[in-house]
Every structure is written in C-alpha cells, then in structure tokens.
C-alpha cells in the first residue's frame, strides 16, 4: 500500500471514477470474517462487527458474520455469538478438516463464499491468521486489500474509504478500491472499540460446503503447542499499562517500568526504539508496528510520542506522560504531563502507589 503513497494517483485519476462495471453491481452487503482458532473467537472479530454495523447501516445493507471451522459445538457457539454482536445473518463453512487453520483450506472456503454470495465489503482482523488469509484471498479474487486500517467509512457514492497510517505512521492515507469487489480491509485488534453485546436469538445461517477432502490439502498439521498463559502478554487488553522509551537511558532502567507496573497491577510495554535496541522483547512493543492498547490508564515514561507510537495508544481513556522535553509530541495527545526525568520519578511513583494500595495488598495476603 505504501508504494502507492509514494506515487499518489493524480487527482484526475481518482476523480474520474467510472461507474462500477455491471457484473460487480451484484456485490452487496458487509461481511466480517469471524476469526476463531479451535472454537475460541478472537475479540478483534467482535470489534469489526461494531465497525461493520456502522458501514452496513450507512449503506442500507445487511451485516453478515462469516464463520469457518470444524463441524462441532464450539463453532456453532461462535455462530450464535455473532448474532449477539449484531449480525443480520451468518455464513458458515463447517468441516472437521477446518479444525486447525491452514491457508489452503481457509482460502478455499472464503473465496468460494465470496464468489457464491458476493459481498461488497469484507473485513478481517489484522492478526497472524487474518493477514495470512487476507493476502491469499485478495490475490485469488484479484481485488484490492488495505491493511491495518485505523478508520473505515463510506463516501457519498457508497465506496469504502479505508484510512491507514503510512510511512511508518508519519502520515495517514485514505485508500479506495473503486472498480473491484469485494473491497477488503484488515484492522488490528483494539483499534476499533468493542461494541456492546446484546443477547439475541440466532438468525439465518447459510451453510456452504467446503468442497475439499483432507487428501486435497498438501500441508499437514503435525502438532499444535498452545502458548502457556504465563508466556502470553495481555498487553493489548490490559486496563492499565505502563511503558518506557528511550528517555530511560539504559536497559537496566527498564526495571523501573516493570516495578511500577507490577505495583499497580498493570501490563508493561515499550516504544519501538527499545525493541530495535534489543532492550525489550517485541511482544511488548506499543504502536503502529506493535500492539494497539485501549487501557483506562496509560503511563508513558521517557517516550517522545512519535506518530507511530501515538496511533497505538490513542484509544486510551487517560494518558499520563513523563518526559524531560516539554515540547515532546507526546504532550500533544496526553491528558496530563509531567516535565521531569522519568528515571528519578518512577521509583517515587512505585513507592507512593504501593503505600496507597497496600490495604488491598493486605487483603490479598489474608485471602
């Protein structure tokens, strides 16, 4: 996508929008791919249902959930749940050889569904699974795909306007797929707000056969080792996050971030330079190329706040920034700013919080 931004289309080209070719006019409705691995729906899918609902209402069309998985109760539960997140109907490809995600079988299921039922918009989560699948599906269908959108809208003509950061998050660009269908886009977890879950009866479910047998699939799953909970970082979904940046000065000082985080029950994170320097592992990176967070409280210590970081934290309810440079861009989007050296302030914060929260800690020891 970025290549396009380097040579933006001349205004004349974009303006000279041809009417949609006749065979593409049949493409209607908004679809959300409900990502699930072994019966566990990924929260990003529900976030996308919220975004998809808004698009569908603007277009006056249906919102459909698309579920692909093994033929079992867990998959059925995901289908049912999609109605609680606003689906008007659901498409289902259920087959036991879809138990594990594999590119070949899932691409076949998705492209067959699109060709049979022709949606105008198809949204997927920009997760490991979603990216692997979206690229194959878009290439098979020879249509446009816009990755990592931060905003989705429809323009006056009913085309999907997909906005995403470009140039490492220095600028935003709005991308259209005018003469191809479906218009495909991916969105990273936590970028869109989680919609309210409203208990609803199951609606219309359209089942479609997979049309493959195990022998048709080249790639075999030898084993699956689920992550141990202890190795999983809950950063993206944490209520409180404390993160550090280059202003910490040395890798040893990152300890101060961990200490404050554990004192207040927060997850810890960092800005991109710390990952590039090897101070912190990449699963802790917050920003455009890392995790997007939406906590109730975010404390950023020694982070300057480049746009690439900003796009990952803008969904936070309350941002506290600590930086020695009062002109640092982080103060443009933080709610509260403290101009001081984070390395000196952090231990004082840890101590003060631990004092203030200690009655609770006593409760914890007693119970």
């Amino acid at each position: 996508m970025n290549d396009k931004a380097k040579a933006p289309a001349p205004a004349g080209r974009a303006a000279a929008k041809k009417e949609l070719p006749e065979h593409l006019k049949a493409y209607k409705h908004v679809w959300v791919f409900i990502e699930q691995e072994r019966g566990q729906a990924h929260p990003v899918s529900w976030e996308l249902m919220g975004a998809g609902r808004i698009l569908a209402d603007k277009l006056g069309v249906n919102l459909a959930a698309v579920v692909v998985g093994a033929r079992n109760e867990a998959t059925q539960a995901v289908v049912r749940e999609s109605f609680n997140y606003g689906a008007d109907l659901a498409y289902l490809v259920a087959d036991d050889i879809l138990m594990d995600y594999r590119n070949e079988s899932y691409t076949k299921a998705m492209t067959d569904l699109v060709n049979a039922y022709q949606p105008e918009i198809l949204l997927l989560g920009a997760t490991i699974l979603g990216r692997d699948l979206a690229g194959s599906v878009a290439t098979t269908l020879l249509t446009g795909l816009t990755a990592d959108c931060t905003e989705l809208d429809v323009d006056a003509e009913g085309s999907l306007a997909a906005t995403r950061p470009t140039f490492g998050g220095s600028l935003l660009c709005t991308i259209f797929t005018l003469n191809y269908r479906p218009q495909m886009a991916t969105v990273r977890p936590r970028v869109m707000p989680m919609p309210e879950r409203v208990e609803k009866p199951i609606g219309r479910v359209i089942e479609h056969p997979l049309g493959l047998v195990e022998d048709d699939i080249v790639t075999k799953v030898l084993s699956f080792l689920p992550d141990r909970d202890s190795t999983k970082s809950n950063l993206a979904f944490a209520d409180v996050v404390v993160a550090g940046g280059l202003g910490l000065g040395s890798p040893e000082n990152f300890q101060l971030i961990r200490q404050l985080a554990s004192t207040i029950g927060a997850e810890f994170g960092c800005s991109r330079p710390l990952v590039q320097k090897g101070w912190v592992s990449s699963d802790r990176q917050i920003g455009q190329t890392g995790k997007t967070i939406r906590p109730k409280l975010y404390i950023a210590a020694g982070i300057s706040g480049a746009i690439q970081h900003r796009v990952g934290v803008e969904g936070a309810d309350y941002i506290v920034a600590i930086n020695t440079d009062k002109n640092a861009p982080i103060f443009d989007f933080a709610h509260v700013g403290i101009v001081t050296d984070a390395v000196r302030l952090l231990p004082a914060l840890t101590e003060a919080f631990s004092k203030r929260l200690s009655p609770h800690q006593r409760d914890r020891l007693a119970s």
Partner: protein
Amino acid sequence: MHIVVCMKQVPDSAQIRVHPVTNTIMRQGVPTIINPYDLFAIEEALRLRQKFGGAVTILTMGPPSAEDSLRKALTFGADRAVLLTDRFFAGADTLATTYALATAIRKIGVEFGPPHVVFTGKQTIDGDTAQVGPGVAKRLGLMQLTYVSHIDNVDLEAGTIDVERRSEGGVQKLRSKMPCLISVLEGVNEMRIGSLSDALTAARATIIKWSAQDAGVEDITKCGLRGSPTIVKRVFAPKPRAEKAQFIELGDKPGDAFVDELFKRRPKLESELGQLTRGY
C-alpha cells in the same frame, strides 16, 4: 537447492520527517536500508544453502538505486542479485507488486533453475502490510508458510519441509511440500557478518537488471499504478487534539503528589487499581 529471497529497499523510517507546513514527506537525505525483517529471511536462506548446497538468489523490485541494497545482500554471501526496475512498476500496490515479483521469479526459475523455497521477511517497515508474500505464493501456486520461526527438516528427495510457525495462540508444526514460500518471523536468527572474500566478490559482482519486458511481463496493465485496484485518494497528517496535556508540578514529594492528583482527576481509578492489585 535453489532459494530465492524477496527483499525490499526501504527508507529508514526512524529518519523520515514530515514537512511541518506542507505535510509532505521530506525524502531528501533519508537513508535507505534493507528492510530489517528481510535480513532474517536472507540469513535463513544462507543457512539452508549451507546445509543442502545450491544457490541463493536475491530479488528486489525498486528504483535503480536499490542496487545498493542488493550489493549489500551479496556481501552476506548470496550468489546473485536481480533488480527488477522499470517505470511501469512505479506506484504498484500489493496486488500489482505480487504480479511483477511472481513473473520475475518464474523467469529466475527458467534462467537459474526453479526455486525450492522462496523467502520473504514478515513484512516491510514502510508498507507494513505483510500481504506481498501470500500474494506471490498464490500467484505461483506455492505452499504458503507465513511467520515461520524454525525450519525443522527438509527432505529433498520426498520434497517435504517441516516448519514451526507462529499462530495466533501457539505454535503450529506443519509438514508441507516444496516449492513453498516462507515468511520468516523476526528475531529467529542472527545475521552473519559477511566474509572478506564475499565482500570483495560483492563489490565486483554484476547486478542482474531486468525491465518488465526482460522479466517476461506479458500484460503491462497489470503492473504499477495501472495494475493496482487500490487508489490512494488522500494523504494527510493526523489532526492534532484540541487540548494539549495539562502540566502538573509535583513539588518535593512527587510520588504522593502524583497519586493524589491522579485520583483527584480520575476518582474511579482508585478503586479500579485497587481491584487490579488484589489480583483478581
């Protein structure tokens, strides 16, 4: 064993600046680098060659200046480098890019032998899409193995390859067939320092340069801007927030002053933090 690595020369994003008035990218003087994620792909390719013999071909699409990055890749010990460069490729989105790269890989297959494995990095740091690898695999009918953290085994006779791949909630061990496309997860290996003799060879090496026609592109309308289904209509700087941060002074007991101030401004946080630290 023939291994192709798709590599991209990218602007060093850490050094990109936006013009404060015109909101355009200031390109002048921004150094270009090999996309950092691609280094893991190059290293993985060299390791396979070490084990099984054969050759590593590096392929890149870009402006003529991308030759610099290809030469750099040769210093690590790659055998040859192909630069796909043509004004027809300019302005390509991911779909048009995969068309050009897939065409060139077919041509590489004809000239230097069909590849067993095509490597890519996980994604680029400028486009960040992670779509080009899957697109190339689809166009060439290669098995697609993304986010691979380890190559466990290659059986050249049976044509099988076993890999570990990162999946959303764990690690999948897969057995697939070659030819395949592998996108390599970051941090899974450490890039070697090229030998002196490789550096000398690289300095003298001829970079193979192909135009669209040389590469065997049959339909030029599938390339570049014309071949791109997506259209960038607007590039703009993010809106500044209406209010800037309120600066607070903490005095000589900064820790307590901060906690007081925070709970005064966000009263609900006190009970929320309390719950979190109770460890539920």
